[in-house]
């Protein structure tokens, strides 16, 4: 690919990012409290530290496990999370959601800390189970709105980008100091999980 083409692609990507960030809420029949556009959905998953820690740690763990987990987990997570969101949206009760979310940060962080390498199926099942908790929590909180699709896309892209951040950080795994750094990050996530678990159980 020529350098000019790369520049053009980069320009288009920046234009896309700008256009996405400028998208406004639906103005037709708008009612206070309803969902807005892409940006509202994008902000939803990054509004809670417990969600952020868990999503980033999915990427960290995927990077530690390597192929095919590095891409299988981020492919699996959004669909299972959306299924949890679907259950939350239609009102299916899901007990212990906050505890489940806190446990996801705790256990995923511990997995990164211990450099745990379970079979791929077990890793996908564990991540999928936690995705259900996160999805249900988001789904139950989602407001009604006109721009359901743009909101959903923003929501899913934000989740995917959190995984991507985790994977990007996780690329340091190929160096010895990077592996120690990842373990330290896993310890941080696990401690965050302990805090959120305390909050969920006691508060």
């Amino acid at each position, binding site marked *: 690919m020529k350098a000019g083409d790369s520049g053009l692609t980069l320009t288009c990507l920046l234009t896309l990012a700008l256009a996405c960030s400028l998208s406004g809420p639906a103005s037709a029949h708008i009612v206070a409290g309803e969902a807005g556009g892409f940006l509202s959905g994008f902000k939803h998953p990054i509004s809670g530290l417990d969600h952020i820690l868990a999503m980033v740690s999915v990427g960290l763990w995927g990077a530690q496990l390597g192929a095919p987990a590095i891409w299988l987990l*981020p492919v699996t997570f959004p669909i299972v999370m*959306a299924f949890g969101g679907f259950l939350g949206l*239609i009102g299916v009760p899901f007990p212990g959601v906050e505890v489940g979310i806190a446990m996801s940060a705790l256990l995923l962080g511990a997995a990164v800390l211990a450099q745990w390498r379970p079979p791929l199926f077990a890793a996908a099942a564990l991540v999928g189970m936690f995705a259900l908790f996160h999805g249900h929590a988001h789904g139950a909180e989602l407001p009604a*709105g006109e721009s*359901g699709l743009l909101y*959903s896309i923003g929501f899913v892209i934000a989740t995917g980008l959190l995984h991507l951040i985790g994977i990007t950080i996780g690329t340091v795994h190929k160096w010895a100091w990077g592996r120690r750094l990842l373990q330290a990050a896993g310890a941080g996530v696990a401690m965050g999980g302990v805090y959120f678990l305390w909050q969920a159980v006691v508060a």
Partner: protein
Amino acid sequence: MKTATRPGLWSAPGLAGLALALSSGGAEAHMITTGLGPVYDGVAHFALTPEDGIPVAGLAVLAGLRGPAHGRLALFAVTTSWLVGGAAGLLIARPGEGFTAALSLLLIGGLVAADAPLSSWAVAAVAAVLGASHGYVGGSSLPSDSSGFLIVLGMSAAVFVSYAIVAASLLPLQSRLAHIAMRVSGSWIAASGLLLLGWTLRGGIRIAAQ
């Protein structure tokens, strides 16, 4: 073939189209009026309706995963069926259920995420179902006169061009990373469809195109 050597340049229109779709504002009415006539109204309607544009883009990604033979058949299948479905919608004028966008996103996204090994005829069949259903929904909300048909014609032309641009930009990308990125995009499309389905079932939304 130049497209095979200049993916960056060819991806520019596709990205610009996606940017337009994502940056679209709220639906002010059921039809976009450009002042340039019904054909251009149809083009604008498609370009500013992500419920239509994203499934078509997803179909192009499916073609990008499967290869040129699949892409060519699907191109004509989706365009023709969109036109026929739109004409049927004009004649019957009975708005469909609000699940069309959610179900098509779920179907197309799921097939892309799973990298389903479909034959070219199976992809064409999926394209035909997608085009007919979306065309019908679009057509049923339009005036049942000649202007309505011209709007459907404009929509179909926009479908043809959009699909061709996205598929042409993706088909040359044969690297493993590009393959994974396409599958991840499929999982995002399917996840959005699933959320939209739940939202629709809850009755919290009213699809703009209807």
